[in-house]
């Protein structure tokens, strides 16, 4: 058994055949992850005790002859913005450095109920705000493919954990590209489901109307299997959808012949040639699979960055208000209440969070609301309509994930605008709330992975997985 390349099916097979026990696998996974961690800083903490207890339960189930569950014994890493009962959840922030939540996120409950093993919590940009993982209060994550480069963000730790093989699959969160962009940078599969497909209960809020929980995996089928477990209505999340959940991994096998794929011309106009060539080669493969490729237009794409950074900062300014020094153990005292607030938040939040809190506070201020927030909501509606129009003509959209492959650590930290633009192709899908994913489509001459983005209509995940699965099979780049 090579733990670094295990798939969900291999884990389940191994357990069923008694090639190894869940406790043995978990122990090995924990040891491997802890040994590898200094190279990447992908994990912030490990949940060894909880993992071994869960593994023992899986083994007991096997001994009783029970079904081991779709994720039975599978070592899983969870982004540290998703709360875990009794396991520290820092959100990559000094302000929650000591915070141990008293409850589990719905996503965590579901993956454990499916037999999954939570082995540790992964590093991320502070409160999921960033595109490089460099805004974490606990140091950046290094890209396992190229250690001098960023893994992308904000779910950089989860992408790196899956890429380096210390977890079979991982949970991330995506607000404007935080799953797809690191998946692209690290050469793994990353899925942002339809908004409302996976419960947000227990996902620490950054921008509530844009936040998603989604899977990372080394192959499409594993991502589909994990989403199958996570998806579905949760009475604790009023925005979670009632729509039935298809059996994604099983539905993947249907063909893609005749599927109509749209290439949004706005996404290829200014795309650097190396990334563009890789994406177009991927599109070529889709053609060979029998897909019909069409030129389409998403005319409001140019407004996505402005729209996104108004809505997400507005919501963030409100969501982050609760970290005020009154609770969560971290406090910087002051002579007055206001001073205590100022000192705590001044010392506790990193630059990126402060920048977004200030932007968001500004755009919601009296007299500015109509010009910024309200306008941005209208633009969001237009962007959503762009996609709805496009999906009248095509079944799926293929696009780049990011303009460039993984950049160097420190390369963009002084230029937030440049950093924001690295999400330019992922923001639109987030704003529209449609399912999107990144699937590896090759490497640059420097050997850096590049992902191709696939998008489908709301709740069209099954189509998306079918397309991605067929592509993955046909693609010679995939090991």
């Amino acid at each position, binding site marked *: 058994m090579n733990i670094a390349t295990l798939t969900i099916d291999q884990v389940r097979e191994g357990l069923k055949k008694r090639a190894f026990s869940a406790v043995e696998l978990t122990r090995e996974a924990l040891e491997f992850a802890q040994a590898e961690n200094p190279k990447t800083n992908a994990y912030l903490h490990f949940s060894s005790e909880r993992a071994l207890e869960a593994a023992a339960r899986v083994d007991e189930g096997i001994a009783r002859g029970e079904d081991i569950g779709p994720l039975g014994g599978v070592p899983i890493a969870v982004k540290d913005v*998703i*709360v875990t009962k009794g396991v520290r*959840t820092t*959100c990559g922030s000094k302000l*929650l450095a000591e*915070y141990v*939540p*008293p*409850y589990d*996120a719905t996503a965590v409950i579901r993956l454990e109920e499916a037999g999954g093993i939570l082995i540790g919590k992964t590093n991320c940009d502070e409160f999921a705000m960033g595109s490089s993982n460099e805004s974490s209060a606990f140091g950046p994550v290094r890209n396992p493919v190229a250690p001098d480069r960023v893994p992308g963000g904000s779910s950089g730790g989860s992408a790196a954990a899956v890429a380096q093989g210390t977890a079979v699959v991982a949970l991330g969160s995506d607000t404007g590209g935080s799953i797809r962009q690191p998946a692209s940078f690290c050469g793994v599969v990353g899925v942002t489901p339809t908004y409302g497909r996976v419960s*947000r*209960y*227990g*996902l*620490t*809020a950054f*921008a*509530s*109307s844009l936040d998603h929980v989604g899977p990372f995996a080394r192959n499409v089928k594993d991502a589909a299997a994990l989403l199958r477990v996570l998806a579905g209505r949760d*009475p*604790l*999340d*009023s*925005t979670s959808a009632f729509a039935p959940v298809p059996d994604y991994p099983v539905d993947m096998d249907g063909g893609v012949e005749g599927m109509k794929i749209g290439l949004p011309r706005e996404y290829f106009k200014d795309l650097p040639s190396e990334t563009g060539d890789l994406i177009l080669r991927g599109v070529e493969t889709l053609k060979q699979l029998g897909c019909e490729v069409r030129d389409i237009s998403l005319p409001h794409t140019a407004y996505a960055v402005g729209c996104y950074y108004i809505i997400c900062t*507005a*919501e963030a*300014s*409100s969501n*982050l*208000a*609760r970290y*005020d020094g*009154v*609770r969560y153990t971290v406090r910087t005292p002051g002579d007055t*209440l206001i001073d205590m*607030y100022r000192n705590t938040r001044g010392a506790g939040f990193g630059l990126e969070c402060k920048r977004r809190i200030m932007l968001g*506070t500004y755009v*919601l*201020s*009296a007299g500015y*609301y109509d010009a910024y*927030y309200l306008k941005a909501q209208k633009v969001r509606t237009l962007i959503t309509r762009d996609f709805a129009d496009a999906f009248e003509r095509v079944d799926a959209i293929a696009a780049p994930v990011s303009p460039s492959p993984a950049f160097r650590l420190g390369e963009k930290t002084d230029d937030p605008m440049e950093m924001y633009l690295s999400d330019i192709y992922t923001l639109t899908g987030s704003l529209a709330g449609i399912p999107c994913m990144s699937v590896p489509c090759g490497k640059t001459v420097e050997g850096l992975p590049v992902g191709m983005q696939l998008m489908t209509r709301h709740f069209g995940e099954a189509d998306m997985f079918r397309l991605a699965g067929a592509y993955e099979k046909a693609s010679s780049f995939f090991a």
Partner: protein
Amino acid sequence: MSSSTLVLPPPEVVAKYEPVIGLEVHVQLATQTKIFCGCPTSFGAPPNTNVCPVCLGLPGALPVLSRQSVEMAIRAALALNCQVRPVSRFARKNYFYPDLPKGYQISQYDQPVAENGSVEIVVDGNAKRIGITRVHMEDDAGKSIHEGFRDSDRYTYVDLNRCGTPLIEIVSEPDMRSSEEAHAFLTELKHLLQWVEVSTCDMEKGHLRCDANVSVRRHGAPQFGTKAEVKNLNSFRFLKMALDYEIARQIALIESGGSVEQETRLFNPDTGETAGMRSKEHAHDYRYFPEPDLAPLRISQDWLSRVESEMPELPNRRRERFLAEYGIREYDVQVLTSTRALSDYYEEAASKSRDPKAAGNWVMGDLMGALKSEGKEISESPVSAANLAELVDLIASGEISGRLAKEIFQKMFATGESARAIIDREGLRQVSDTGVLDRMVDEVIANHPKQVDQYKGGKTTVLGFLIGQVMKASKGQANPGAVNELLRKKLS
């Protein structure tokens, strides 16, 4: 008392001005659970025990709107003649405070659950309609405790039990023109909300809290003056005190050549005065925006109709009906509809008895008197409405006299038994048997020759005395009507 610098303007100066008052009233809904989670709303639990991740605002927790809260808000809205919006929306009201763990309150802003209502008040016999601008739903904050701990000089303690308790805020139009009208409005509001059982309106527990917007203008002036918002009016007495003070303060200010500032003022019950709290420049910017964690609240016609069908008859409608159906006086109707429970009681007694008017007198007289002296509510009355109706009917049918009825009522009140049971047990039947009465009347005539002579001499008022003698002889069991008739016959 404070060293106030306010010189109260003389009445003739005050009379030149017209106060303009609008109220904002926060009402705690009488739900079992909080508005966005399943925690109980019970009062008096140990600090920070009625809490969960949702009402504590823990990272990742999300609100889920309670159906019962919405239905209570709808009931309140209907009682206030409001239009319930088919779609309303929650919004975040952002501000920092230690007892506000999310850093925002979930409220409603541009699309409240209901709007455009009215309440009728009566002041000095004049009816007046006070407009209701809106009713919106929101969650309550926790409680900061600044006193009572050993280290209260250095620390404030926070109890989050109240966090997430469902509230409605009722905003009136600036339709009130005196502190008396404001008092009457709040009284009627409380009456209505208790009537439809959406709140206990217990002011001591903070279930009803009131702020006022106050301005003054010269009579006939086309525009309102600059208003001040006065907070902390948490009893009917304080409301009136604060308004009277604030009105006088504003008039004095204008009379002395100054002008009223738009500001928030706090009423101090110890001094009876209002004091500036924050100016317009320092007013909070709450940065409202739609709450992304909650879908818009859609209230279908079906849902609305169902809630409406479960509503009790409203007091105004009931008053009109009582007047028409039971033929009781306007004043009596007011008394009998002063609470829902009392009017329900009366309704049952009146509808079951042959004499609704007499039933009303019994309720307002003997029953309320007896309840009052025992410190009991109508809901605790030992005499059921049906039993009272029976008592009324026994009088109406002549089976017992009014005097005997009063005795029986005392026994009913003491034991909870029916009049019939008491009569049967104690043999207290009214004597209508003419044979028995005949004998008694003859005896009384024989024993009182002087009075008989007086009667025959034209002093007919003496008949009352003779009737009384017969009643006495019968131990109250004689039918006074029959005695009267018999005496007249025998003496004529």
